[in-house]
Every structure is written in structure tokens, then in C-alpha cells.
């Protein structure tokens, strides 16, 4: 036994745990999502699970909810070993889960959704009246009595849907209720109601597993906490036993995985910023975002996953309809109404999307075609592609990025994940972008390719590009960026620069803890 597993020994609670996970591991391809994870939850208590992006929390609850099967380890319910082959198995065992991505059926009514797993029957058919009573009761229990049971889910705003989701989980009369970021879409009034509901459920003897990044919620609700890091459960403790700062230490404390290229000393220039955004807002996802991005700079976008970083990149790239605010390029105001405007010569913007399979590449098409797509205009005259110029340009990129491929004419699908990602980046390098937006480009690629990518980014910046780089990996932000903008709830919460970019600072600002200096306003 190593010291690390020693630290994971559960606190001395007197009662027997209702549900226990022992030494659970899960591997996705080459990535270990969960290693030897332990968790013990008790009836009548709220157990908070903490950890940064990719710490293994999602995998943990997917295993508990029967969505994925663990590779190794045991699960015990009432001290009996259990295995779940599907979500229905877990539900039958009394485990209900409220997922971050909603599990509601958009075209069905609220009542249909609440009763979907086990609708009341009469003569073999669904008893709509009984179903309606059941739905009304569940909605009332969730503190959402004002939602009409006959409304279609697709017509409800996100916060209402989240309440329906909670009612749905309660209607199954679970013994264990898992809430994964269940409050992230809720309004303040709903959150207060939900606190009341959760406390009542606790007093009714349910075991609750609560995953949230909002430290004040955890302080308000949790009885016990477990911290996850790199797929391991590193500490379990009674709520209140550790300070915020200690918790952040537990969450980060890992050795740096990669080597990062040196940051050059930047000379201050008086040129207007390459890109400047003024008060950008969109829907209810982006709020009043202003920042500047200079030539030669690598600026990171930090924060927990899903705080509007993706939307910000899409808004800049002209994908989102109804964006308000202004954008200027080299000091001149521009309107970017679509990606084709964004890639125009005078703007020169490129976006490396997060989902390379659907948004970045045409997988069945050849390496050459994929690389040449964005540069079609530069490589053609009067609408005819100059094949030899195209081949030369493509070969140059393949060499420069060291893309490992079996020739230029094999389908993109035949390349490894890392090389596919290089292909997406290479596609945009063909047009020599002046502004490069990257959406979590290293997710799911190997360490070696990551390394090459970091060097490439620095090289491009040296050559005068301005780079805005969203990453869910804190290491990367610390290692790669000249400045980092930390986003919380669709707004830039803090800006960190130079030596102030530390793991601790990034994680605590992402958690919205008030330990760092506020952004001057």
C-alpha cells in the first residue's frame, strides 16, 4: 500500500455504507479515466465529489449509473456485490442519476418524461390520468409545481428542463440520488428551492452524491467529501475539515506531464491589438466579454468546462447568430457574420474546432483534400484548382507538422487521433492565419503530439500570429500561455499574466474562490 491510498481511507463513520466502490478502474483506449477509485456513501448524508476537469468524476458516476462498465474493482450495495449492465439495472437497484447532459426526450410531454422508465399501466396501456397525478406529485416534490405536466419538454427553457429532470429522478423513488452539476443551469430561486428539497431528501434517509464546482454549494450542503485527481480518489473527509486552500491543493498536486517551449520576453508594442472584443454577449451564455489579443501572443482561455469558452470562440468566428458587442481587427471595427468572412484576408481568422471528427475533418476524404479545403481560393485561378501548386503546398504542411501518413491520398480516417488533429491545424496553416482560435486541441491526443503542438503554437506566435487557446488542461495553460482569461458562467472572471499563471491560481479562480486579486474594472 502506498501513502496515496493510505490517504484515501474513509473517515471513521459509524454506520455501514449504503453503497461502496472499491478499487474501481476504467480505461478508454490508452487513457486511464479512473484508477483504483474508492468511494463510500451513506444513507441520510450528502456526499460531495470534487475534482478538476478530467479528474474522473464523470466516469465515476457513469459507472454508478450503469452507463459504462468498470474494467476492474467492486461495487457493493448494502454490502452485497452488484454489477450494472445498463442504466435500467442501476435504476432497479435504486440509483437515480441527474446527468449534466439532460436525459429528457424533447418531443414528449413533461408527464411522459417523468414516468418514462416505469409508467403506470391500466389494462396493459399507459394510464394517462395516473401518470399525470404521479408527475404532479413529483414536480411538487422537486419544488417545481408551476411546470405544467402536459407541456412539451422542447418548449421549456433550460432551467425548467433541469427541474423536470430532478422531478423525474425523484419519481423513481430512488435510495441513492446522484446530481452531476445539477444546479449549473438553474436560476437563483430554483437553487434555493433545490437546497430545501435536497435537505428534505437527506432527512428522509436518501443517500445523495453531489457533484458541483461551486464551493459555496458544497459548504452549504455536504456532509462528507471525496476529492478526485487524475482518476484517483485522493482524500475523503468530513465536510468542514479542510479549508478551501487545502482542497485546491488536493485537487491539483500533480506532476507536470509535458515540457513546454520557453516563453520569449515580449516587447511592448504600440500597435493596436490584432483582435479586440468589446462587450460581447450572446443568448444567456456569454456576458459582456471584453479583451485584447496582440500579435505574437498566446492567450489561454481557462475555467471549468462549459463556462462559455466554446461559445466565445464560435461568436468570434461568426457562427452564432445575434451576438451583440463589437470586434475590431488591428484597430478597425469589423462585422464577422460567418466563418467565410472570418477567414477573409484582412481578418485572417482560423478556428480549430473541438470535435475534429465532425467539425474539423471530412474523414472519408483524402489527406490532400482535407488540407487544401480552406485554401481553395489561394490555390485556384478562375475556379480551377492548380493541382501542382496544391500538391506542393500540401507537402510543405505535411512536412512542417510531421504528419505521419501513408501518402497524401489515403483517407483522413486512417490517421491516428493525434495526426488527425495535426491535419485540422495544417488545414488552417495553409492560409497563414493571423488570428488562430483553438478549442481544446489536445483533448484525447498523445503526449508526443501534444509536445509538437505546443512548439508549433509558439512558433506561429513568434511569426506574428495572435493565438487564443481554450484548454481544459490546467498544465497546458500554465506552460503555454502568456496570459490566461478565466471564464465563469459566460463571463471573464479573472485575467492572469506571466508568473501569476499558476495551477493554484487557475483552479481557484475557476472555482470562483476569492483568494486571488479581482480583475480591475
Amino acid at each position, binding site marked *: 500500500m502506498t501513502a496515496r491510498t493510505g490517504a484515501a481511507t474513509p473517515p471513521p463513520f459509524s454506520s455501514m455504507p449504503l453503497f461502496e466502490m472499491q478499487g474501481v478502474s476504467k480505461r478508454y483506449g490508452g487513457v486511464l479515466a479512473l484508477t483504483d477509485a474508492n468511494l463510500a456513501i451513506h444513507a441520510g448524508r450528502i456526499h460531495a465529489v470534487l475534482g478538476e476537469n478530467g479528474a474522473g468524476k464523470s466516469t465515476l458516476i457513469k459507472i454508478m449509473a450503469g452507463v459504462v462498465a468498470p474494467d476492474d474493482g467492486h461495487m457493493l450495495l448494502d454490502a452485497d456485490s452488484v454489477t450494472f449492465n445498463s*442504466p435500467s439495472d442501476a435504476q432497479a437497484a435504486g440509483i437515480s442519476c441527474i446527468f449534466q447532459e439532460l436525459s429528457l*426526450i424533447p418531443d414528449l410531454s413533461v408527464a411522459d418524461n417523468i414516468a418514462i*422508465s416505469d409508467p403506470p399501466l391500466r389494462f396493459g396501456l399507459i394510464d394517462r390520468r395516473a401518470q399525470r397525478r404521479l408527475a404532479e406529485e413529483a414536480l411538487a416534490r422537486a419544488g417545481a409545481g408551476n411546470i405544467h405536466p402536459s407541456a412539451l419538454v422542447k418548449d421549456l427553457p433550460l432551467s425548467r428542463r433541469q427541474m423536470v429532470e430532478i422531478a423525474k429522478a425523484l419519481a423513481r423513488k430512488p435510495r441513492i440520488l446522484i446530481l452531476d452539476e445539477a444546479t449549473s443551469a438553474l436560476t437563483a430561486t430554483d437553487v434555493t428551492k433545490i437546497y430545501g428539497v435536497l435537505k428534505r431528501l437527506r432527512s428522509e434517509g436518501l443517500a445523495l452524491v453531489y457533484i458541483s464546482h461551486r464551493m459555496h454549494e458544497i459548504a452549504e450542503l455536504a456532509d462528507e467529501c471525496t476529492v478526485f485527481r487524475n482518476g484517483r480518489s485522493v482524500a475523503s473527509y468530513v465536510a468542514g475539515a479542510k479549508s478551501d486552500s487545502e482542497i485546491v491543493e488536493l485537487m491539483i498536486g500533480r506532476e507536470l506531464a509535458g515540457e513546454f517551449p520557453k516563453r520569449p520576453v515580449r516587447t511592448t508594442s504600440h500597435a493596436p491589438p490584432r483582435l479586440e472584443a468589446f462587450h460581447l454577449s450572446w443568448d444567456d451564455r456569454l456576458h459582456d466579454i471584453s479583451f485584447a489579443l496582440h500579435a505574437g501572443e498566446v492567450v489561454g482561455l481557462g475555467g471549468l468546462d462549459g463556462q462559455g469558452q466554446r461559445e466565445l470562440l464560435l461568436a468570434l468566428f461568426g*457562427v452564432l447568430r*445575434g451576438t451583440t458587442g463589437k470586434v475590431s481587427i488591428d484597430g478597425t471595427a469589423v462585422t464577422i457574420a460567418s466563418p467565410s468572412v472570418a477567414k477573409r484576408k484582412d481578418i485572417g481568422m482560423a478556428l480549430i474546432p473541438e470535435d475534429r471528427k465532425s*467539425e474539423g475533418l471530412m474523414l472519408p476524404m483524402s489527406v490532400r483534400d482535407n488540407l487544401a479545403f480552406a485554401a481553395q481560393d489561394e490555390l485556384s485561378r478562375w475556379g480551377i484548382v492548380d493541382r501542382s501548386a496544391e500538391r506542393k503546398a500540401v507537402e510543405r504542411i505535411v512536412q512542417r507538422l510531421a504528419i505521419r501518413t501513408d501518402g497524401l491520398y489515403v483517407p483522413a480516417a486512417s490517421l491516428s487521433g493525434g495526426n488527425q488533429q495535426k491535419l485540422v491545424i495544417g488545414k488552417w496553416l495553409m492560409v497563414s492565419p493571423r488570428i488562430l482560435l483553438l478549442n481544446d486541441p489536445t483533448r484525447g491526443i498523445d503526449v508526443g503530439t501534444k509536445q509538437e503542438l505546443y512548439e508549433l503554437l509558439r512558433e506561429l506566435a513568434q511569426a506574428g500570429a495572435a493565438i487564443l487557446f481554450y484548454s481544459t488542461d490546467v498544465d497546458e495553460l500554465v506552460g503555454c500561455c502568456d496570459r490566461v482569461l478565466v471564464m465563469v458562467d459566460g463571463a471573464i472572471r479573472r485575467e492572469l499574466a506571466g508568473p501569476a499563471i499558476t495551477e493554484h491560481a487557475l483552479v481557484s479562480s475557476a472555482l470562483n474562490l476569492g483568494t486571488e486579486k479581482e480583475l480591475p474594472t
Partner: protein
Amino acid sequence: MSGDVRYWLRENIGTIFAFAAFVAMFLLYVANHSAGLNANVAQTAANKGVILAIVAMAQTFVVLTSGIDLSVGMVMVLANCLASQIVIGTPMSTAFGVLAVLAVGAVCGAINAMIVIFGRLQPIVTTIATGAIYYGAALALRPVPGGDVNATLADALTGQFAGGLPASLFLLLALVTLVWWPFRHSVIGRAVYAVGSSEVSAYMSGVPIRRAKFAAYTLSGLLASVAGLFVTFVTYSGEASAANGGTYTLYSIAAVVLGGVSLFGGSGSAIGAIFGALMFRTIGDLLFVFDVEPLWQPLFQGAVLMAAVCLGSLRLLRIRNRLELYG
């Protein structure tokens, strides 16, 4: 309770719209028909409309799962050819013949289901391929048009009933009450809607996805064979006509769209599809009473279909993230 009515309208808007459009067209047709609405006019119109209506019902089941069944027309043709061989003779043997035809239809649908569920092939490819096979079987059964059918049964179902009402409408009504209504209110029926609306959410909610798809495709085959039987009753013979099979398949999709069933799955009803089918048929009749050349018929049907699809796409104007347009 006014809230309930509003939500009911919201949920059934496609069906209501199809119903209203059909009634308007049909009234226009009757008002301009030289003979007005008499029993014979109604009987002929109904017999023509009901075949497409049943095929459209068949199509609805699969479209609700967000799939598509391009074999419905061929299953209908196969059922027609088989019925022209075995639905004949004593009442007993006729009854067995009918059951056998229905069983063959259901098996055709079940084969589609198995390939889609376990082979994980796209419904469109699967049903093109199986459709060709079913047509091949029909051709083997009846290389040249011919055969016969129990005339008593045929006349009863295609004739008039209870003082001049078309009997075929009662058949349609029976299918709605005995097949569609129970389906709509069953757990498996709801699962079909859930799968079509969001398969991931359905899986997460523990909905029986495979059973739902199996039921949808099998019911589709079953109803297609009912349509095939009805074709036999109208024509008193069987014919392995590729043109008929293809046309009915395509028209069934048109009828489903006109009837407010979403091709993305998860919303709409077979009742809407029935009115969609009747509407599609009425377009042809309308052109006839207004003395428009029959050559124009496809063009008008196309224009009406286009208009219906455009109405259905209005919601796209509200999308704010352009990536969702391509999702």
C-alpha cells in the same frame, strides 16, 4: 383547463393542420364535382385514398423512430401477389389466406428490424435492399399479372356500407382503433417516440430501444401487407408491379410529411399521415374537376409537398447557433 387545451393543440398541431387542409380540399372538390357528393363518388375516392392511407400509416411507425422504410411499397406488392394466390375458396381457407398474408408482411418488417437493430445498417440502405428482395419474391410468385380473390370479401370491403358509406373507411377506422390507438398508448409506442426524439436520452432513461425499433418495423410490414390485401380486393388480381411499389413508397413519405410527422422522428401521428395521404390523393381529384390537364398533376403535387416542407422548416429561423443547422 384552458391550459390543457393549449398543450393538447401544441402536441397535435401537425395532425390538426393536416385534417383541416384535407377537409378544405375535399369540400372544394365536392362543391365543384358535377355530380356532387353521392355514394358512388365517395366510394371511388375512398378506395383510392385508403390504400395510400394504409401505406402512410405503415411508413409512420418507422419515421417516428427517425428511420425510413423504403420497402413498404414492395411489401405491399408482395402481399398483393400472395393474396391473389391464397385468399380464395371457402370462408375458412380465405381466412387462413388473409392471416398468412398478414404474417408474411409482419415477417418482412421483422427482417428489416433485425438488420437495422443488429446489423446496425442505416434504415435507408437496408430497406432499399430488402425491398428489392421482397419484390423479387413477388415476381417469383406472380411472373405475369393474374390470379383471383374471394369476391364476397373483396366486394364487402370495397363496397358501400350502412346506407352508402364507403366500407373502406370503416376498415381504416378499424385499423386506427385496433392498431394505432393501442400502440399510441402503450409503453412500446412511447418508446418508439422516445427513440426517434433522442436515442441517447432514451437509452439513459432505460427505454427499451431495440424492442421499440422491432415493433415499429414489424408493424410497418404488417400494415403494408394490409394495403396489399386491399389492392387485391380492389383489382381482383395480383401484379408484381415495380412501378406501383416505388410510387407507393415515395407517396407514403410525402403523405407522412403532409400529415405533420417529423422526418427527424419523435413527433406526429398516424392519423395525421392518413389525412396527409387523403390530401395528396385529393390534389389529383381537384385538378380533374377543374379540368386541368392530367400532365400537370405531378407538378401540383410537388408544389403542395414543397409548401408543406417549408412550413415545417420555419422553426429553423429561430436557431441562433448556426452549427445546429448542420447537426
